[in-house]
């Protein structure tokens, strides 16, 4: 149920305000996926190393092969990791002992153990 239309439906409150149960007094059986978005920032340290090296060597890449390589590896690893977690989340596999659960898994758990009536 939407909250705002429910409030509008009530009209102007008059003292003393009688209690009215507009929404049911229980938690929703699901969570939204909105807060699950993680930051996209990665490899900042490696990037800074690359920048430092490039600046030192007047933007000659051949001089900074090591830094560039580690930077690129970091990025590919990050992408790979992201892909793997996404796959797993999509499948909804529960990881035992995981503290921060993605919303899909939470929803699954909540569905498994619904509110008592």
């Amino acid at each position, binding site marked *: 149920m939407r909250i705002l239309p429910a409030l509008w439906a009530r009209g102007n409150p008059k003292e003393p305000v009688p209690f009215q149960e507009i929404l049911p007094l229980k938690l929703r059986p699901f969570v939204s996926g909105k807060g699950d978005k993680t930051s996209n920032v990665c490899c900042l340290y490696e990037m*800074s190393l690359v920048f430092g090296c*490039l*600046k030192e060597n007047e933007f000659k890449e051949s001089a900074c092969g090591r830094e560039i390589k580690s*930077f*690129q590896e970091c*990025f590919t690893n990050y992408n790979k990791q992201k892909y793997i977690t996404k796959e797993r989340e999509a499948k909804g596999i529960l990881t035992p002992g995981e503290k921060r659960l993605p919303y899909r898994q939470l929803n699954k758990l909540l569905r498994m153990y619904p509110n008592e009536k």
Partner: protein
Amino acid sequence: MFTRPLLLSSKLELTRCFKFPQNGMSQYPSYYIKPIYSNDKQTDLIKSGEAQKLAHVPTRAALNDQTSSIYHDDLICLLVNYLMKDGNKLLARDLVEKTMEKIKRVQLEKYHKLANEEEKEKVVLNPRAIIHQAITNVKPILQLTPIKRGGVTYQVPVPITDRRSQFLSMKWLIEAGNEKERTVRFYDQFAYELIDAANNTGRAVKKKQDLHKQCEMNRAYAHYRWS
């Protein structure tokens, strides 16, 4: 098996028979494998006995640029496709071939000018090797992406995938080839650009370095990424 179900079987049976691919645009069902057109790969498969297994797997038709020629090169096919306008592949391929011809001519001229045998050996005469080298040299390691923060758009340096950097590299090389006098042929200019890029000089490489410099200037924004 496929003749009757349209009349007799339920929808369920039908869906079991056909698995439509994800994108819905391919003419092939998803279980079709891609063709193995390279001669070497085929020989390897036959040696290892894998070919026996693949012999009866439904296979897609080879595309028209996938040949078993010994001169087949995936990267150059890609370059042809990037160069192509309005689906005119004939022209694009012609231009790339003429570019390779020009590269060979320029390099051979250098080769014949040198007196020393050792130095002669160092001249790269393979146009494909030069193109590969040029593309590798022009690949950027970072790119800038515009991100709006508090009403201000910042150009934020972000890491780049290999595929995108390869695309940018070829795009810049082609753009560099197009920046020319009206009387100069594209393939001539493109050949010079490729040779320059293979030597880590030239306009395309300059463009990459400019991007890197810009990224370095905007390094402070690096932690702004979309969140």
